[in-house]
């Protein structure tokens, strides 16, 4: 299966993620699919991560955690968060096939970030649902 996102959808995704998340002062937001493809990659201009490797590992990591959930009888673990000394990563699943990866410093409140992520997910869902699968 392949899928195509058009310019309007991608512009909409970038705008929503910039307005709702990047303005919080977070380091970067990457929207990927569960195959590890990078759909939108936004950063604060100060970092230069290897986004494609990060996406492959994030998709694998999330897949592994979901499989663990299934083994112990959970449908999924809704919160997946890794805390570092100065940087942290939050993963949020969007529908079945997409994953939002947010990288942020300790100056950003996780609770507030998750609140904003919940808001932006609605917009992202609406935009992706227009996707033409082939």
């Amino acid at each position, binding site marked *: 299966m392949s*899928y*195509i*996102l058009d310019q309007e959808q*991608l512009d909409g995704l970038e705008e929503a993620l910039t307005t709702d998340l990047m303005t919080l002062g977070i380091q970067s937001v990457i929207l990927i*699919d569960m*195959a590890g493809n990078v759909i939108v990659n936004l950063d604060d201009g100060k970092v230069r991560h*290897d986004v494609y*490797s990060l996406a*492959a590992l994030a998709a694998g990591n999330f897949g592994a955690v979901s*499989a663990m959930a299934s083994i112990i009888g959970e449908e999924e673990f809704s919160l997946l968060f890794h805390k570092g000394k100065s940087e942290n990563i939050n993963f949020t699943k969007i529908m079945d096939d997409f994953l939002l990866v947010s990288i942020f410093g300790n100056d950003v409140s996780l609770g507030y970030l998750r609140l904003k992520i919940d808001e932006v997910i609605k917009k992202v869902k609406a935009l992706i649902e227009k996707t033409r699968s082939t």
Partner: protein
Amino acid sequence: MAFINTKTKEVQVKLVFVGPGRGGKTTNLEYIFSRIRHRIESDMVSIKTQGDRTLFFDFLPFELGAIKGYNVKTQLYTVPGQVKYNATRKLVLKGVDGIVFVADSMVDRRENNISALNNLAENLNFYDIDITDLPLVFQYNKRDLATEGIPILDVETMEKDLNAQLKAPSFTASALKGDNVIPTVKKAISTTMVAIREKLL
């Protein structure tokens, strides 16, 4: 699941190297990486056990050039070959666009090749993919062992065992020496792109 980005004019394609344990999947990727490392920004990512066996996957992304004005980003993955790692093997196959099946030419690995191919078909079925519908290339690896007096399967036997029905392109190779590694991956990419390119227009 190839992703086509019409804004950045980019196509992302996922190719997965599959096959029995110790068959040379990681060695294939290491050889490819050694040939292209001067022109790519990324490193090869490997998640290994302490014993240097693949635990989750190896990952190597690179840009292939443009087709119909679209920049093609190819992402090569391997799966762990060991039977016990089927859960992670299945995860890596999610969204696969094309397969390189690395078969081991050693005589005593004959059954392992067949089991690994059957396991691949089962895992693809999990994602509602029929193995006959997916771009696939066989690589009969470790042909160099014949020069060291180690008994290897003849190509006809391997074709009969693995490729009689699929009739996919196949290559004899030595991943350790680099023989036919690049032609194998080129064929896999071109076969996969043919399957995807009609969707670009």
